């Protein structure tokens, strides 16, 4: 932390008070002085911990939304159409690993072409299935899927800034799983064979 000064001193008061910065700091200061308020705010973002906490809440909200869809469908729709048969499938989905070790496995799960095909297929028919639902159910499902979508967007944005963050990766994978679970629930609930 000191300069190359090798002269000798007899008191602490003789030490040089000023130490020139190794580079000119003024251009950086000037840029921040002239930046509009919004940019200055962007230069001093909230602490990473606060952002991560918010994203955790979003992921949790997505999970709650997914569970809400499942529970609502389980209670309101499936009793009318023999929903007991679907229990093992739902349990399989819930059992997907949530640990950091599991996140790596889940990453391959999400990029799996079969998963992508299934998701695309579910999304393709989603709008028609939602429209076929009774209005209260439609509102609940739409709100839940919007929450999940919002969580995904925020997590993807955060990962764009910090791609190697294992926790964010895990939260995103979990949110994809929640989305898949909700889509499957909607699909099964409105399946003509099951009769919504």
């Amino acid at each position: 932390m000191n300069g190359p000064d090798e002269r000798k001193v007899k008191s602490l008061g003789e030490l040089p008070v000023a130490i020139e910065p190794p580079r000119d700091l003024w251009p950086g200061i000037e840029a921040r002085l002239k930046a509009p308020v919004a940019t200055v705010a962007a230069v001093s973002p909230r602490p990473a911990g606060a952002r991560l906490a918010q994203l955790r809440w979003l992921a949790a909200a997505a999970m709650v939304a997914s569970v809400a869809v499942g529970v609502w469908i389980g209670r309101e729709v499936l009793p009318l159409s023999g929903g007991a048969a679907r229990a093992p499938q739902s349990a399989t989905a819930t059992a997907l690993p949530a640990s950091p070790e599991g996140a790596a496995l889940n990453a391959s799960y999400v990029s799996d072409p079969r998963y992508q095909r299934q998701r695309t297929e579910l999304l393709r028919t989603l709008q028609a299935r939602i429209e076929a639902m009774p209005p209260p159910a439609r509102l609940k499902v739409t709100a839940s899927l919007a929450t999940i979508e919002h969580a995904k967007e925020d997590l993807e944005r955060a990962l764009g800034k910090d791609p190697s963050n294992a926790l964010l990766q895990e939260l995103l994978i979990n949110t994809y799983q929640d989305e898949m679970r909700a889509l499957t629930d909607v699909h099964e609930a409105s399946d003509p064979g099951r009769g919504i």
Partner: protein
Amino acid sequence: MSYAQVGDSRVDWEGALVQRACAGDSRAFERLYREHAGKVYGLCLRLTRDAHLAEDCTQDTFINAWKALPQFQTRSSLSTWLHRIAVNVSLGRRRKASPVMEPPAEDEEGSGGGFLLETPLEVRELETAIGALPDGARDALVLHALYGYSHGEAAEMLGIAEGTCKAQLHRARKLLRERLNMEIN
């Protein structure tokens, strides 16, 4: 008179620059930066012991100063005001970097003295010994022995009691004496 207190003519010169900077003249503020950057960076570097962090703290100090310039009283010393901001910024950054609290020093009297060395030492050697001091002791030593602030001023800047500041200075002196293996009067 503390280091930070300066002659009337310079205060007037600075006062004019401060007034221009207050009116939004960034060239005037740059001149103030050029005048004080070395002392501010030196203080940040000694408090953080990290060159990159010290650069960030120096920039933040001047950004904060620019924003707060309308509140600055031109009768007081700009240097002291900037050092106050630099101490706040540096301690805040240091807490974020390693939020481990140091145990407070017990109040102790008898820490006065000019920190005179029995045998002359190279600047580099002395700076290294100061850099190796615990945070609290180093903070008090830098502000009091290097920057010339009184116990009260240093304590106020650091947000500690004056007695604690004196105790930290006593501790700094003791540790320096042990590390440099020499008497510090």
